[in-house]
């Protein structure tokens, strides 16, 4: 219960930060400190990197997204940033609230490759999320710099996501003898990978560059969320913990 309350407190602080201005910044940073502190607590409580279950993965992911505040602060109008960024942090944190907490680890997860997979997965998804924030800011402000930021963050996210697939495939092969399976989960991961590849290339096509490509990039966020959270409950997949 105390865990859920702590999450709800920093979610509330992120929510209050959307009021904007200096007060908003104070709320946001206070939420961020509490958020970071909670992840640190989970690390000591578990005794390993808190990335082995969805609950922790989503909280770490939302924390990485929240940290991008310091990157955006000098590039985006503060009020516009506080209207957009906290929303994504709240969405990811709220998803975490609804995940069961197990506090155990499967022996198969005790592998460097597994942690490589998850660390890159979290950072890749965080970059995709932040790129969507940049895309929304572009759609509202029409500044070319934000379109470029969205592109670069998506590119970095796509590379990190690819690294995570390399790590994940290696881990899966060493554990189960296959590096790819025909399951709904794997097919959706492939869709997410191709989707961002599609977006990165679409920007090179003159008829799609600018607003259409930005919208394609922003729509990547619901796709990664579905590929991560929606496939198992809606389509059914054997991988439920992470």
């Amino acid at each position, binding site marked *: 219960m105390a865990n859920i309350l702590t999450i709800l407190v920093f979610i509330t602080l992120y929510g209050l930060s959307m009021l904007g201005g200096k007060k908003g910044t104070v709320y946001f940073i206070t939420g961020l400190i509490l958020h970071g502190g909670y992840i640190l607590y989970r690390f000591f409580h578990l005794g390993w990197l808190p990335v082995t279950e969805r609950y922790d993965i989503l909280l770490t992911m939302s924390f990485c997204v929240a940290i991008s505040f310091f990157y955006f602060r000098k590039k985006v109008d503060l009020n516009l940033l506080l209207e957009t960024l906290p929303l994504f942090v709240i969405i990811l944190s709220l998803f975490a609230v609804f995940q069961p907490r197990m506090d155990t680890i499967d022996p198969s997860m005790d592998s460097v490759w597994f942690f490589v997979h998850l660390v890159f997965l979290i950072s890749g998804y965080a970059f995709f999320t932040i790129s969507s924030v940049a895309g929304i800011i572009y759609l509202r402000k029409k500044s070319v710099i934000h379109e470029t930021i969205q592109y670069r963050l998506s590119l970095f996210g796509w590379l990190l996501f*690819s690294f995570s697939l390399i790590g994940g495939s290696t881990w899966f092969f060493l554990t189960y*003898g296959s590096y790819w399976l025909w399951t709904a989960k794997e097919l959706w991961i492939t869709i997410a990978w191709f989707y961002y590849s599609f977006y990165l290339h679409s920007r090179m096509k003159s008829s799609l560059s600018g607003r259409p490509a930005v919208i394609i990039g922003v729509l990547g966020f619901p796709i990664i969320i579905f590929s991560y959270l929606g496939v198992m409950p809606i389509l059914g997949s054997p991988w439920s913990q992470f």
Partner: protein
Amino acid sequence: MLKFFISIKTYLWVTGIGMGIFLIGSFYIPKNLAIFSGINDMPLVKWLALNNNVLDKLLWIYVLIGIMLLVWISTIICSLDAIIKRTKLRTLVRVLSPQILHIGIFLVILGHGISALSGYKHDVSMTALDSYEVKGFNMKINNMDFFKNPGENSTRWKVFLEIDNNKHTLEVGKPAFYKNVGFFVKSAREKKQLAIIGLIYDPGVVWEIIGAVVFIIGAAGVFHTKFNERLPSGTS
């Protein structure tokens, strides 16, 4: 023909259609588990041949193979074209990095293709101290250890396996490799002193590894280039 493969429009159409088929598959597989239950137990082409009595239900996989083939060809032609036409000493890293990355993807898809065409996956249920001859290997489990680490939700095992008189220790996530074949413990039972050993021969894996390494080299170049590029200024 060359123009068709190096066009961005072609790539966008092909990946767009590919994503659509993956989407169909993601909904179709869970609803037809009776058909697809064995798809992960053998190379894809062999599985497709065994299931040609339900061809209408597998058409999407054939179309997907065609689409992946187009992506594969387009990736390599596009990269070679860029390397030949655009490489200059001054812009070497900037131009070459994404192409190296593309070649990495090309090799990974090649690995998938080889895995789909060849190799085998074979499971054998073995009891301790009994000898088995499987796929030309003489195998015997000499001993098995079972234990549970704190914080873990299930039992671990250590299987001491002899293959052609060579001793190997198999653990969770730590298979043994002998004569290009992987030996994996799929599951083990302490009471029955029984283990299911999976023999996996997958010639595509080596291409996957080479592809992954090439991809990482290309990605490092892309990171380097983009980190050093200045952001534009002004509004559109």
